[in-house]
Structures are given as structure tokens and as C-alpha cells.
């Protein structure tokens, strides 16, 4: 191989073969500052029904295409037709439609009744990790298949032992991080094959793409898992991973880690509407929730029937978009003769029998030693991360109800502030300041403690 050492990107789930240099990684996403919420994050779409899986991996590699390479353990030798290249827009749309959302309500005139609302959506950024490789024969490595799909050259390798595979990779300019051999060995013994992708520069220039499109794979396997162990080897800190699971049955959860719901349906102060504030809030809230779960849980940020949304952060995906993501079924839900069928939900056409689960995890080797193993459950309860800003009514409050409303408002503000402090770990004093509340907790304690104040007055 004439070129320099190859860089490996691995979506968190694969190899991140890093040679010491960070390679301008942090600067990559400046232009997308609004979406680069979580550093070192990757996005994966998993379409699963029975034993069939279609996986789509977002590719945010921003280095030189010739330096891109990726290695993923796969359960079987894939044929050319099982590999495909998708469009980034699909994942972006899926991301947007399932993002945690901020909604706004305006209190109605308590003396009358009216309400309207507005939704503001929040997008998540993704960054992929970049790494670098550097550069011995009888590898006992078999190239099971070799294809060019879209802009990618793909090899499917099978290996008998990890030493040979490691040497093969090193001789082919992939630099292995410490510990990689052991992990490779474990995968080999578990009967996994290795999917290795590089960019075919000729094909890429012919196609005219300046960025790398997401790779897709379709396979049948009882294993419903995502290999994350290789990707953790050279990552010192934590990585964020978003899994968008599309199923026919219902919610997806991890079976070897706890899956918990992200705190939701919270009232938050209106200043969080200002530019960047909601994102800051979400980031800190995630961090706090993650710490509360001992950094060991996977969070559900969204779980919803693909047919509708409320409020919609973006339109649900169309049938053709879902098909492109690999949704291969089109039929309606199965009916069990022993169970009476519930009435159809309002206006639901059941056009798409697809259920989306958005999982967000922040992992490292200490807290997530094993690969992610999933199961599809029959849980079809909808859930979303939704945060609410309530604007007080500004008009005259002359009626009796209005007076009561006014005194209730102060208590509400207090609650919102304490709630926010609890959710994010932010200092209460700072929150009071931002909310322009002059006397925060003092007010409350005064009222409580000095109960005797008004007795003799």
C-alpha cells in the first residue's frame, strides 16, 4: 500500500486505531456549533425485526478520504447486495424528529381561557472519533469477499486467530491500539467476521461526493448487538452514542445494561429559550442524570410510533425514507385471536407499522465493559424528552381568580428554579439571578420559619 498510514474512524463501535496524534479533531465541527452538542458522539440506526437487522452508520469523518478506514465485527460474510450506501439526510431527519424538544406555553388570562403553544426543536450534533494507523506473513486471515459499493472499497475478512488478524491489519497500515488483539480474539471466537471499509478515491470523485455517506449493512442473525469494545480501546474519556432503533413491535432496550427514561415533562425558566441555553441545559441535565445512574445506564430520549408526533420536532419520516433506512416490512400489526383488538387510535391510518426508539448512552470501558446487547420489547408506550416554558399572563389581574393566580406564580417560579437546579446541578443562586428573582430561597424560608410573625400584629 503506497499511501501513508490510514486513519480509522469508527463511529464508536469500531476500531479507533489511534496513533498519538489527535489530528485537529476538535476543530471539525465549528461550523456546526449548534449541533455539536456532544463531543465524540456517533449515530447508528438499527432496523430490527425477528432475526433481521439493517444497520446504518453515520459517517462524520472529516479528514482526508484516503485516510479513512473502518473495521466492524459482523455476524456473517456479507454479499454485495447486503451492503449499501445511504444519504446523511436520512439520519439527520431521524435525529431531528426524535430530538428532545422545548415547548412554550403562554398562560391564559386566568379570568378567561385560551392557550397556544409553539415548539422549538433541538438538534443533536454528532462527532466521530478519528484515529491514526501505522505499519509483518501467513496471517490465517481469509478475504471472504471484496466489493466496491458507492465510494467504498469493502473487504470481508474471516480469521482463525487474533495474532494473524492483528498482523494483517498492521501490515495493511492500520495501527492497532493496545488491547485490540484480545478484543479481536474474543470476536473471532464468537464466530464474527470483520467488515473493513476504505474509500475508493476514483469512485468517490466519479460520484462527486465531497463527504462520506453512511454505510449500511443488512444481515440475519439472532445476535442483536452493537460492538462497542474496539471503539473504546483508544478513547481515553467517554463517548456518546445515539442509537435509533426502528422496529415493528415496539421499544428497544438493552439487556445487559439498564435502560432508563431521560427526565422529561419538566417546567424550566423562560431564559433557557435564549440562544444556546437550551442546549446547555440539555447537556448538563444529561450529565446529571447519567451521574445519578452511576454512569451505567442507557437513556431513552424518544420512543414513539412513527405515524405521528406531538409536538413534532420535525415531520415523521416518510415511507420512502424509512425504506431507505432499511425498514423492510410494510404490513399492519399482527392480531392475536385470544386478545380483543383495541379500537383504532384517532385518525391513525397505520400506514407505517414502525416504532422508533432513540437511545443515548455515554460510555467508557469501566462502566460498559461489554458490547451492547438489545432486545425488542412489545412496549408501545410513547415517551419523549419534553421541556416546557410557561410564560405568565401579562394583562390586568383584577378578578378574584387573577389574584390567586398572581400569588401562585411566585410559588411556581420557586419550583421551576429548584427543579432546574436539581436536574442540572446548577447553582440555585445563579438560576435566581438569571430568572431575575431578587430574593430566592430566603423568601420561602422566611414565610415558613417565622410563622409567629403575624400572630400579635
Amino acid at each position, binding site marked *: 500500500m503506497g499511501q501513508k498510514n490510514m486513519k480509522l474512524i469508527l463511529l464508536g463501535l469500531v476500531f479507533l486505531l489511534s496513533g498519538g496524534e489527535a489530528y485537529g479533531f476538535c476543530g471539525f465541527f465549528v461550523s456546526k456549533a449548534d449541533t455539536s452538542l456532544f463531543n465524540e458522539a456517533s449515530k447508528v440506526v438499527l432496523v430490527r425485526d425477528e432475526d433481521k437487522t439493517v444497520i446504518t452508520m453515520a459517517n462524520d469523518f472529516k479528514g482526508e478520504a484516503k485516510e479513512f478506514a473502518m473495521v466492524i465485527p459482523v455476524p456473517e460474510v456479507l454479499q454485495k447486495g447486503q451492503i449499501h450506501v445511504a444519504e446523511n439526510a436520512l439520519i439527520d431527519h431521524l435525529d431531528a424528529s426524535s430530538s428532545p424538544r422545548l415547548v412554550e406555553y403562554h398562560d391564559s388570562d386566568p379570568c378567561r381561557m385560551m392557550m397556544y403553544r409553539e415548539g422549538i426543536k433541538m438538534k443533536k450534533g454528532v462527532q466521530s472519533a478519528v484515529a491514526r494507523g501505522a505499519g509483518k506473513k501467513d496471517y490465517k486471515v481469509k478475504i471472504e469477499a471484496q466489493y466496491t459499493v458507492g465510494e467504498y472499497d469493502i473487504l470481508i475478512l474471516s480469521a482463525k486467530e487474533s495474532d494473524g488478524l492483528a498482523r494483517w491489519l498492521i501490515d495493511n497500515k492500520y495501527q492497532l491500539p493496545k488491547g485490540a488483539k*484480545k478484543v479481536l*480474539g*474474543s470476536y473471532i*471466537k*464468537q464466530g464474527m467476521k470483520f467488515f473493513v471499509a476504505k474509500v475508493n478515491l476514483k469512485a468517490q470523485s466519479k460520484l462527486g461526493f465531497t463527504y462520506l455517506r453512511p454505510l449500511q449493512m443488512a444481515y440475519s442473525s*439472532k*445476535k*442483536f448487538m452493537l460492538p462497542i469494545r474496539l471503539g473504546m480501546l483508544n478513547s481515553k474519556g467517554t463517548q456518546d452514542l445515539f442509537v435509533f432503533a426502528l422496529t415493528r*413491535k415496539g421499544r428497544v*432496550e*438493552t*439487556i*445487559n*445494561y*439498564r*435502560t*432508563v*427514561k431521560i427526565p422529561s415533562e419538566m417546567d424550566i425558566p423562560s431564559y433557557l429559550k435564549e440562544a444556546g441555553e437550551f442546549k446547555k441545559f440539555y447537556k448538563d441535565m444529561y450529565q446529571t442524570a447519567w451521574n445519578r445512574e*452511576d454512569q*451505567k*445506564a442507557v437513556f431513552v430520549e424518544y420512543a414513539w410510533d412513527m405515524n405521528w408526533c406531538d409536538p413534532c420536532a420535525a415531520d415523521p419520516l416518510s415511507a420512502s425514507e424509512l425504506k431507505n433506512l432499511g425498514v423492510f416490512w410494510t404490513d399492519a*400489526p*399482527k392480531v*392475536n385471536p*385470544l*386478545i*380483543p383488538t383495541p379500537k383504532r387510535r384517532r385518525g391513525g391510518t397505520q400506514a407505517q407499522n414502525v416504532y422508533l426508539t432513540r437511545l443515548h448512552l455515554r460510555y467508557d*470501558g*469501566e462502566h460498559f*465493559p*461489554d458490547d451492547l*446487547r438489545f*432486545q425488542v*420489547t*412489545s*412496549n*408501545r*408506550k410513547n415517551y419523549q424528552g419534553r421541556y416546557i416554558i410557561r410564560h405568565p399572563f401579562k394583562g390586568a389581574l383584577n378578578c378574584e381568580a387573577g389574584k390567586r393566580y398572581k400569588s401562585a406564580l411566585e410559588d411556581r417560579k420557586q419550583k421551576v428554579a429548584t427543579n432546574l437546579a436539581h436536574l442540572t446541578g446548577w447553582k440555585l443562586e445563579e438560576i435566581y439571578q438569571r430568572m431575575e428573582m431578587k430574593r430566592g430561597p430566603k423568601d420561602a424560608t422566611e414565610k415558613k420559619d417565622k410563622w409567629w410573625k403575624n400572630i400579635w400584629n
Partner: protein
Amino acid sequence: MIISVRVQQILLLLTLLVIGISREIIQLELWALPLALLSGLVLQGIGDSKRRRKWNIASVTISCLSLCLLLRTQNPYVLFYAIFFTVLSKFLIVYKGQHFFNPTNFGIVVCLTVFPNLSWVSPGQWGNYFFPSLALSVIGVLVARNAQRLLTAFSFLSFYSLMLLTRYLYLGDPLSIFTHQLKSFSLVIFCFFMITDPRTTPRSFKGQILYTFLIALTGYLLQFHFYIREGLFYALFFICLLNPLINKLFPAKEYQWAKKI
């Protein structure tokens, strides 16, 4: 005050339910517990009256609470069927006047098979934490108060850990994967509160050892080679089928509830 083993079990199951619900481990519908208990008690009452026996409230309560703890469904009919199959197995699937399926497990397996789209189990939801799992094991030992139960629990746990250890050594995985698997709270629940029911475990010492070995082996194979996540439940189901045979191979007297260490 002496509280009987069964009452202790009920209290413990209730505690687990409260913890499970408050920690969002179990999402129990509001109708679930009343429906389970009511239908369970009624069905047990009918069965006992046909058999002209005393209404066995404690036993059916344990089964119903265990079902609520382990089986997930959002459909009241499915939960009712689960209770129905559980109680049914106690009265109808008998050999020499003794039921041999673990009733709760029977209910779970039948529901998972008949309603794969409406019911599921969530073993991962309890998490893998050292201290809670250790604490539950200690409580399990204290509640068992009976040599037979302890033997079942410990021999199963030893066989199963040994299989996980073999796998870990074979794959060359980091130790943390092995300990992560052992720290599973669900495993402790299964070990101390599912397979240890003295009525559905073989009576003799050798029988017990064989029984737990077979459950551990089947459960391990189903989970790690066939990727069936509910492997342990299926394992218990199939091995319970062998109980009459195991009891024939290794005969011993029938278990009495009053027997203590």
C-alpha cells in the same frame, strides 16, 4: 415473633416491587397488581374447593407478586392469562399428586410463547450492581432458612458462574465482563426466588445437584449460543419437565413445609 417463610417471601416480593416501581425498573400498570391478586385468589379458591383443600392464599399471592415482578405486559388480558396458566399448572399438570412445573415460571413461559407481541421480560432493567445484588443474596439466604433451598440456590449459582468463567477464560475477555454478568440483580432474583421453590425441585441431594446443573447448562446455552435472552426461564421450564424422572433416579421423601434446618 416468628413470621413464616411464606410471609417473609411475600414481604420481600412487595419490597422488590416497591423498589422496582420507584426506580423505574418495573413499569406496572395501575390495574396490574389488583387484577393479578384478585384473579389469582379466585382461581386458587376454585381449585382448592374442587380438591377440598384449604384456600392457599400465601402460595398464590407469592406467584402473583412474582409474575408482576417478572412479566411485562401492557395488556390486562395477557396478565390474566399469565395468572390463569400459573394457577392451572398447579392443579392440572401434576404427577403422582404433585405439580412439577414452577408455577410462576410456567405462566411466564406460556405467555412469552403465546403472546410474543404482547408480553416480554426485562432482565437488564434491574441493572448490574455489586452491593444491591450482594444484599439481595444475603436476604435470600436469610429467608431460605432451609437447607434444601440453600443447596438449590448455591449449586445453581456455582454451576452458572463456572460456565460464565469458562466462557470468559476461553474468549480472553477482560475480567470486568465476567463480573458485570455476575453482578446481575435479575440473576439473584432468579436464583433465590425462582428456582428454589422446594415443591418443584428434586427431593434428594444428588437430584438437586443434577437439576441445578441442567438448568445452568441449558440456560447458559440458550443465552450465549442461541441468543435467547429469556434463556433461564426456558431452561427452568424444560428441566422441570424432567423432575419426575430425576426423582425416580434419585428417590427421597417428599418435601414438607415445616421442615427446617
